[in-house]
């Protein structure tokens, strides 16, 4: 299978070009839908205004006294959550494309199967990063203070996380080919991931077994890493572990996605 996509007809240059074509098409379609654009802008703001006041009082507990700026704790959680949920449900769009025959039309072209996925994932990543930046900008007047290098690195983490969840979501969508199968599956995964990540509630207030369970959730380490970056502890072990986990997740996510797109049942 690998041989097939790496035949001389597929130089790396052509894969990039094809990715760009697929990305452009996907982006154009996203921007054409006004409802979607509005939701895209309002979602992070809603998080900020509705969750913010709730989380402020427990800041000290979450950060174990490492900081007094609530937003240094709160915003990292929000952008990680955004990276996860914003990308998790993109599979629904792919099922719509599949039903319309677009995926089959794509697959009958000589374009690299990886480009067909990568172009769509790239669109999702760009959307997420724009949402995250918007969220950061709005939080500044509300009191967010964080070093720019840490924030930049955090945006990279959000982008990688988005790429991971988007390609996994596309994989599951292509395998199930049905909204009815995808919806409960995604919801079933999303809820525990979110709770165990310690984004909404600090794990320290839970029993020991719950804390141990959350320790094996990579997302918790990613959130802790981004929080460290927002405090400016770029070289700290927390931020390095966060980076390690997000890179590992990305490699796994993209590999699974690429495999599914290459497989004939796709």
């Amino acid at each position, binding site marked *: 299978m690998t041989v*097939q*996509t790496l*035949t001389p*007809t*597929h130089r790396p240059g*052509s894969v990039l070009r*094809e990715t760009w*074509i*697929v990305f*452009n*098409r996907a982006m*154009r*379609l996203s921007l*054409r*839908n006004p409802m979607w654009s509005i939701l895209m802008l309002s979602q992070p703001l809603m998080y900020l205004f509705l969750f913010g006041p709730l989380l402020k009082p427990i800041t000290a507990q979450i950060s174990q006294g490492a900081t007094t700026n609530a937003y240094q704790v709160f915003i990292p959680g929000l952008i990680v959550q955004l990276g996860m949920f914003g990308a998790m449900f993109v599979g629904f769009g792919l099922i*719509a*494309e599949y039903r*319309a*025959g*677009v995926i*089959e*039309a*794509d*697959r*009958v*072209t*000589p*374009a690299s199967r990886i480009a067909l996925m990568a172009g769509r994932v790239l669109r999702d990543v760009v959307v997420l990063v724009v949402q995250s930046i918007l969220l950061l900008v709005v939080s500044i007047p509300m009191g967010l203070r964080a070093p720019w290098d840490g924030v930049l690195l955090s945006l990279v983490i959000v982008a990688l996380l988005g790429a991971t969840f988007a390609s996994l979501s596309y994989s599951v969508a292509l395998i199930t080919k049905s909204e009815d199968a995808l919806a409960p599956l995604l919801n079933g995964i999303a809820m525990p991931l979110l709770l165990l990540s310690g984004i909404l509630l600090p794990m320290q207030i839970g029993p020991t077994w719950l804390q141990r369970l959350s320790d094996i959730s990579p997302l918790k380490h990613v959130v802790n890493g981004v929080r460290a970056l927002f405090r400016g502890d770029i070289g700290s072990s927390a931020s390095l572990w966060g980076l390690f986990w997000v890179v590992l997740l990305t490699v796994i996510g993209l590999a699974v996605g690429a495999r599914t797109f290459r497989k*004939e049942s796709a």
Partner: protein
Amino acid sequence: MMIEARGLVRTFKTKRGPVQAVQGVDLNVADGEIVGFLGPNGAGKTTTMRMLATLIKPTSGTATVAGCDLAKDPVGVRRRIGYVPQSGSTLPEAIAGDEVVDHARLYGVDKKRAIADGRRLFEELDLPGLWRRQCKTLSGGQRRRLDIVMGLIHDPKLIFLDEPTTGLDPQARANLWEHIRGLRERGATIFLTTHYLDEADALCDRILVIDHGRIVAAGKPEELKQQVSGDGVRLSLGDAENAPAVTKIVEELPGAVAVETDGDVVGFRIPKGGSVLPSLLRTIDAQGIELNGVEVHRPTLDDVFLTMTGRSLRDDSETPAEAQKEAAA
């Protein structure tokens, strides 16, 4: 040879057990031919075509398509073929022209050329002024023609068309047939599926009749019809009581086969039906039996199908023209 397939088999795994969609298909398509795959719904036409277009892998069998080995060089096959699927290829929310241009660019066609070729195809396929329209605002027939533009945009030398005229009105069908003949004139080879008898008859140089995943007959439409023994004759009697007597007379005719009685109608097949009729009518008249009507028809592809499979293709398929006639009647 543009397509050469040997022993193509495809089995689908389903919850209710394996489905043998294609059970050993051999086929050859020469350069510049229009070949039609004729068969009822579920015969395996789409599955065979999707295998040849690299969309699904054969369970077994081999094929060379447009000079490339299907298994070893699927990318080579994809470069050289155009494929128009049975059920759409554009997103409802997308702009028609955008979908066409993006599709062309995935074949390596540059943007300027894709726009020029796309607009020209829009004119040729009777889609003027629809370039900037959202796909979902097009009529069924227009969307079908848009699918065809998508399949032709990179000027492929081999074109697969899966039921290209389904959903088109008679005018649009005739128009598309002309266009398909025009493609052949410019050197393209066309492999299409259809369950319309008249389409296979009028458009195709050669027909492969498929049923239950197997090719049951192959040849030029005329040759196939000649294989069916003789013309069909139908005698309508005023009175069903006379049917046994008439059947007896008919059975004594040299060369008469497939004698069947249905109420007051006696049907059979006989070579040169027109020339045996006068003496037959005299014999019936001499016995004092009255006839309400007589019909003689040249063998059709439906007769071919009936002879090969024992079933009629018309059972599940009417041409749009016929459907309209009936609606008007």
